[in-house]
């Protein structure tokens, strides 16, 4: 068992299924069990792709709503 901080609320969770988890890392917890170790790299990559789309549109001067027409 380990302590998991849920955005300020600390709760015990079973870490048996994520033996590689280290203090300070992020996990997905379901009914008291960590089922997945979150990849910070993948999270950053996903956000970067989304922001890139945003930036290209910003550079082209496209504003929200314009693509609807």
């Amino acid at each position, binding site marked *: 068992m380990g302590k998991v901080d849920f955005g300020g609320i600390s709760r015990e969770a*079973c870490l048996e299924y994520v*033996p590689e988890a280290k203090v300070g890392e992020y996990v997905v917890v379901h*009914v008291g069990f960590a*089922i*997945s170790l979150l990849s910070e790299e993948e999270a950053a990559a996903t956000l970067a792709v989304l922001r890139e*789309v945003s930036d290209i549109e910003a550079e082209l001067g496209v504003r929200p709503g314009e693509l609807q027409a």
Partner: protein
Amino acid sequence: MKYVAEFRDAELVKRSAQQIRAEVTRPWTLMEMCGGQTHAILRYGIDELLPPEIELVHGPGCPVCVTPLEQIDKALALAALPNVIFTSYGDMLRVPGSGRDLFSVRASGGDVRVVYSPLDAVKIAQENPEKEIVFFAIGFETTAPANAMSVYQAARLGMKNYSVLVSHVCVPPAMHAILGGEHNRVQGFLAAGHVCAVMGYWEYPPIAEQYRTPIAVTGFEPLDLLRGVLDVVRLLEASEVGVVNSYARAVTFDGNRPAQDLINKVFQTCDRKWRGIGNIPISGWALRPEYAQYDAESRFDVSAIHSEESPLCVAGKILQGQLKPPQCPAFGTLCTPEHPLGATMVSSEGACAAYYHYNKADLVSEVSHG
């Protein structure tokens, strides 16, 4: 909370929706598998952000909703036994059985307790050696690692007073049932991200191929849902079939191997009836014979129970994406969260509860009449 707030960023949500709008040229019907996704879609108004070409229909991925009536009735019978402490996830308490629900069993003296995790039920069993503790082990692949661990622990500790009433179901057979059904409208799937966190998505490429239906492994935050929609739409627009991982921060192709190993140690596949849908072959898990002494159905005699569903409830059609909740004549009148006719109105993952809670009745009637 980190990795939650970023995926709710309003500006990026708007941009993502525009991206979908820019790329879609034809109408597409997508199904989100998981009830947690259905609730997020309605809560954040994702359905309204999407272009009119995209219709989202809601899948059967609500464990409480598909737990067969017979198992609910068995739960009610077990919970009413004098020496039993019946433990369950909170969602199950208001789910209607043939006559009543677990709340009313509790009101008439049954010892029914809500637990957050099955390990809490094991703890209650340790603290009450003179009582029989039964845990209602329901759920999809997401809860299976937890439920399996509770049985494994009980066996390891040599406990004699813990058993589980199992009603486990699996996603891939349900996808086969939906895509192979004669009324199927689904052209693309948003697969349930947390099921895939456990199981991986190695089971999905053959399904995508067999039905020529693209699948995106999808998370639960607004940006995750839009990413999943965009990835499926891109494949559909390009007439391509494939499986995309749109939730890579939590899901890998192989999934969580230690969790799968323990599931396979404790459970074996079985045919399972899905409430409102019917029997789906090899669609569930039951305890392996080695763990038979932890099976509440063999420990207590609950076999001679006659179950009867409300004739008004159309939950089966809703769970297969054939109807939307407000199209049910009983929605919001004869059937409400306080007095539900079916489980879909009760569960925090049920589609009817989502529409009721987020007040989407008007929206759909406009769409369906429009």
